[in-house]
Structure formats: structure tokens, C-alpha cells
């Protein structure tokens, strides 16, 4: 419902009837803005972000309760999510733990919901037609949709990171950060590394976002698109576990996801991080162009 309103608002904001390139570009920008605002105003989006914000709180409280009695000698021996043994020493590590815990499933699932719904949801509720009447063109509309999904990727990652930092600061001491190579750096540099890690995590989701967008252009049912995207995600994650498939695993999009931890080495070990970003760019290019090919050539009947 709000879709149609937004489309109307967009149309009135740029009433220029002549499809002059400048006007079209302006329209594209306002289209992007209206896309972003409508997406982030939805209850569904806010609920997803709320769930993501709750994960660090749960992890933080669990760690606090478990180590509450004795002076925090988190002798886990590497069980649980990565970095969890460090959380009691430094609240900043809750950021890394939370990202490591949410990256395999929660984050991509949220992205899958937003991306899968982006085009198919409009088609399903019959609002896609209104968007296409405007002179911005389908390519621009698709770009706006993809940019919105990307904005959600960054927002979701930031929500996890900020919530984790807040919980970590409340429950645990902050201070100098011990890198996993055993080197100690100041808290400021640690924060910078945390920011870089959040950026890498957000960029790790570019591939899923493109995949979801492509799936979304295939169907007119938003639910089907979301389910397919999340289903594909789970399937690929499972395939990534079998040692027999090691030949193809380097080309599966979640394969290098946990490589963000390499930013905590000293010196930083870039190999896997760069491979991850390259792989995500490849997925974005392939599925983005596939979505474009599909979306710009299909007849929209509803």
C-alpha cells in the first residue's frame, strides 16, 4: 500500500513530462530516495533489524552469566563462535563474536528477505506498474532497488556492530585490544579495525543481495522469492561443508565469509579477504546483469 503512495509521491516530485536525460537522472535520484525511505519505514525491515540487534545482547548476557562467578577465565578452548573466549577481557570482542555469529545465517537471511521482496513484492501487490509508468526506466529502477538492498546490508551490519559495542561496553571492560597474533594495539586502532571489519562483512553480503534481486525478477510472488533466496543460501552453506566438494567450494559465495577475522592478524593477512571481495564482485556482476536482462525484457502483466 505504501508502495503506491511512494510512487505517487515520486511522480509528483518530478512532474517533468519530457523524458530529457537530466530529468530522468533527477528522477532516478528521487526514486532511490523514495525506495530507501519506504524500505526502511516498513515494519518488516524494522523487525529484522530488531532481531539482528538482539543477537549481540543475547550473546553478551550469556557470556556474562556463564563467567559471572569467577574472574572471567573464559577457558572455552575454542568452542562456540569465534573470539568468544576474548569477550570477557574486552567488550570490543563482542563486536567480532556477534558478526561471526550472525554472518553465516542471520545477516544473509535478512538480506535475502529484503532482496527477494524488492521486485517480486511490488509485482505481487500490483504496484510495479505504477513505478514503471514513470520515465526513469527499468534499468534505473533496478539500480535503485539494488542500491536500497545494499544500503540495508550496511545498515544491518552496523546495527549488529553498534548493538554489540554498546552491550560489550556495558557488560565488559574496554581497553587495549589483543589481536589474534598475540600483538596488543590501542583501543582507538581496535575501533578502526572493527569498523573495517563491519565494512568487509557488509560487502560480503553483496553476492547474496544480487542473487536475491535476480530471483526476485523471476517471479511475481514476494514470498516465493524470499523463500527461494533463503533456501539457496542454506543449500550453498551446506554444500560448503562437504569435504568431497572442495574443488568447487572456493567459488561458493559464503566460502570466504569468515575471512574478515584475518583483519585481526598482525600484519593483516589479505589473501582471503581480497578473494572474498573479488568473489562477491563476481556474483554481483553475474546475477546483477542476469537480473537486468530479465527485468528489462519481461512483460509485466500485473
Amino acid at each position: 500500500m505504501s508502495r503506491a503512495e511512494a510512487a505517487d509521491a515520486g511522480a509528483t516530485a518530478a512532474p517533468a513530462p519530457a523524458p530529457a536525460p537530466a530529468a530522468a537522472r533527477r528522477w532516478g535520484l528521487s526514486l532511490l530516495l523514495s525506495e530507501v525511505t519506504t524500505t526502511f519505514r516498513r515494519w518488516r525491515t524494522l523487525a529484522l533489524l530488531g532481531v539482528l540487534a538482539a543477537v549481540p545482547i543475547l550473546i553478551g548476557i550469556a557470556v556474562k552469566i556463564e563467567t559471572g562467578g569467577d574472574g572471567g577465565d573464559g577457558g572455552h578452548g575454542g568452542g562456540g563462535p569465534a573470539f568468544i573466549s576474548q569477550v570477557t577481557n574486552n567488550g570490543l570482542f563482542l563486536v567480532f563474536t556477534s558478526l561471526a555469529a550472525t554472518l553465516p545465517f542471520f545477516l544473509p537471511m535478512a538480506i535475502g528477505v529484503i532482496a527477494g521482496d524488492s521486485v517480486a513484492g511490488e509485482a505481487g501487490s500490483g504496484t510495479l506498474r505504477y513505478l514503471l509508468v514513470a520515465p526513469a526506466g527499468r534499468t534505473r529502477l533496478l539500480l535503485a532497488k539494488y542500491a536500497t538492498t545494499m544500503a540495508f546490508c550496511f545498515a544491518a551490519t552496523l546495527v549488529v556492530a553498534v548493538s554489540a559495542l554498546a552491550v560489550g561496553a556495558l557488560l565488559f571492560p574496554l581497553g587495549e585490544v589483543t589481536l589474534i597474533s598475540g600483538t596488543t594495539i590501542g583501543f582507538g586502532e581496535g575501533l578502526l579495525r572493527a569498523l573495517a571489519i563491519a565494512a568487509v562483512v557488509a560487502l560480503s553480503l553483496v553476492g547474496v543481495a544480487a542473487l536475491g534481486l535476480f530471483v526476485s525478477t523471476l517471479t511475481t510472488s514476494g514470498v516465493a522469492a524470499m523463500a527461494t533466496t533463503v533456501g539457496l543460501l542454506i543449500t550453498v552453506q551446506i554444500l560448503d561443508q562437504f569435504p568431497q566438494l572442495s574443488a568447487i567450494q572456493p567459488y561458493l559465495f559464503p566460502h570466504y565469509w569468515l575471512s574478515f577475522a584475518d583483519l585481526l592478524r598482525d600484519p593483516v593477512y589479505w589473501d582471503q579477504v581480497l578473494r572474498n571481495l573479488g568473489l562477491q564482485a563476481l556474483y554481483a556482476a553475474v546475477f546483477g546483469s542476469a537480473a537486468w536482462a530479465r527485468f528489462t525484457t519481461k512483460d509485466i502483466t500485473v
Partner: protein
Amino acid sequence: MARIQPTPDTDGAAGPDGDGGGTGRRRKAVRYAVPVAVAGVAAATIGITSAFAGTGDPDLPKISAQDLIAKMAQSDTQRISGTVKISTDLGLPSLPSGASFGADGQGGKGGGKGGAAPSPESKLTELLSGTHTLRVAADGPDKQRLSLVERAAEYSVIRNGDQLWAYDSASNTVHHSKAPQAPAEGKGKGKDKGGKGGQDAPKGLEAASPQELAKKVLAASDESTSITVGGTAKVAGRDAYQLVIKPKQGESTVGSVRIAVDAKSGVPLKFTLAAKSGGKAVVDAGFTKVDFGKPAADTFAFTPPKGAKVTEADGKDAGKGAGAGRDHKNALPEALGLPGVGGDASGAKVTGEGWASIAQFSAGKDAGAAVAGKGKSGAKGGEKNAADAGALLDSLGGKVSGGFGSGRVFSTKIVNALVTDDGKVFVGAVSKDALVKAANAAK
């Protein structure tokens, strides 16, 4: 409801005429070609780079094997840093997790005090299977650093002067000891090709670097060995000669050892050990990145991080370490059969020469009984454990009999071990027949 078709002018379509099924279909085909082309180009790029990675052999002046070895020996490179990739495929049967190493796994954990601090010894055994990435840095004989890059964790061993630190980030524990004064000497003794277990494990980890592996093999070579220069290769972006070492003895299981030696500095960059039976290399350790510049000084600085649990390796700890080592010793020779890892080295008798040497030692009645499948396995006993061990042994070893009686042969790609029912162990990098022959001769 009316169909809304793509508007050609705003979508930058191929043709201005939006009507007619033919052009529409063609345009569709052209657009779908874009993702296919992107995927195709990516696949081709990956294929071409991996195909050419192995071939572009550099053109280097010819060199004799002796000159090459001399070059290696003269090499006084003290400063090196880089990334090493080690792939090991010993041809072990994959053990069911949980049941792995039967009773000994549990015994080992008990020895390690709750297993809170993965000891350097267990890290060393980790290197014996799969693919691992190591980061190494060295500046002179008394500053070294070695980090085992793990998934979201790292295990670092840092040596600075006489201080030896081991830090495990997964459990946030530190292991501290005084390093021995003579670090790299005396390691080439014997035919110990598997690295040492026991207390000197950090040294053992160190021994995984290409230099140490190459040195060991050269120390072990004699007239039973053919050493040739087998062309050139590019390793970690540097031109290198390939030194090929092949055993002449027929009963050896070693196919060839290849060492890629940096053409400029004489530093070994890659070490490949292939089995005679073929297949994937048994050990493939090489630099993927290497730099001969001076590593930053703070690379070798280590202070235990706040909150980390520090274990000091004083005399008591060393004893404990040895105890834990003994627990592993029961498991290792049976599973790996590496000479020098298990048993008391003093009690071992070596027969045969060069590559065909066979170590013979007595594992005691317990081991023999356990191998025969009827044992209560020593103090750790427990019928379930014994049954587990029996099942495990059945999956690992085949039964053989001969003039010596009967026993089991445990084989890997390189090392075979014969454990007789009366508790004698014959281990060597030789074929099964040679082991049986040695056992018969010992009878």
C-alpha cells in the same frame, strides 16, 4: 489488464522499434548474453591463470646438482618473511571423529589438564593432515616467528633471544619457556623425516619450513640416492631451480623429493615429497609469498596479552609435557609409524641402509596384545575402549604372517609399520615385503 512492455527509449534498448516479436526476442537474447559473458570471462580467467601458473618456467643458466647444493649450503640468508602453504596427505584412513585414537585421545586430554591449552605437540600433529597456511619471519639465528593461520584464530610461536612464546588465540592461552641455546643444530640426525614430537615441539613446528626439510633430506642422502637438477620453476614469484632427489633402492616407498631452490639466494622455497605409489604429493610445503627484507623489529616482540592464561614451562611442566607426549606416543607410531616419534629412541635398532632403513623396537607386551585385538589396553583399560581400539585397528591394519609369526601391517603412503603379536615394531619408509623380510631376519 494491459501488458506493460519495456520502453525502448528510456531503457537504452537495442532498437528503437519496440514492436514485433522478432526484434524483442533478439534483444532478449542479447541481454541474457551479458550475464553469460560475464560468467564465461570469469571462468576463462580463472582457468587460464591456474593453467599458466604451473607452466611459465623461467629461463635460467644451467647448473649442476653439486653447484646447486653448494649454493644452498653457502646461502647465508638470515632474514626472511613470507607465507608458507603446507599440504600433507599421508594416506591415512580418515578416522571417525570422537573415536579417533581410541583411548589415547582421552588419555592425552587428561594429561593436558582439561585440554584448556592446546599444547605445541598437538599443533604439530595437526600439521600432519590437510592443508595449512603458515606465516614465517626470521631475522638472524635467534629471532623467529611462526604463525599457524587458522579459521578465525591463530597459533603463534615466537622466539626472541632465549625467550620462547607460544600463543593460541582460540583459547587465549600463552605457553612460555626458555629456548634451547643451540636452536637449529642436530636436527638432521638419523632419518627422522617426520619432525619430532615430545618437548621440542616448537622446534618441530619450525622444522616444517622448507629450509629445514631440505636440510634434513640432504643430510640423509648418500650413495643410495640420485640427485639431479630437474629444470626450473617459479615459486612465490621468484625464479628457482628444481633439485630432484630419488632413492635408488627398490624397496623404498619414496618416489621423489623435489626442492625448488631460489636461483638468486639459494634459499629453498618449496619442498615436495611424492610417494612411489603416485597420487597427490605426500608433503607439499612451499612459500606462496616470500620477502628477504628485514622484518619489522616488533614482529618478534611479545608480551603476554592481558587476561591470557600463561603456562610456564619449568621443570615440572616439562615432565608433564613428556607425560602427555607419551600418551601420544602410543597412538602415533601405530597410526603414522613415523620413526623417531614413538618409542624410546635409545631402544630402537636400525637395520638396512639409507632410504631402506628399518627401525626396530619393542613396544612391550601390552601393545602387542592390543594389536592382536585381545588386549586390555594398559592402565587406561576399560572394555569399551579396548573394543573401540580393536575395531579401529581392524580398519587401520591388515594382518600378515610369515616366518616371524603373525602381526599387523599399518600402511600410509610413505611409512609402513609392522607390529608383531609379540610386541615388536618394525617401522620404515619401505614396502610391506621389506618389513616382513626384516622381521624374519630378526627372528
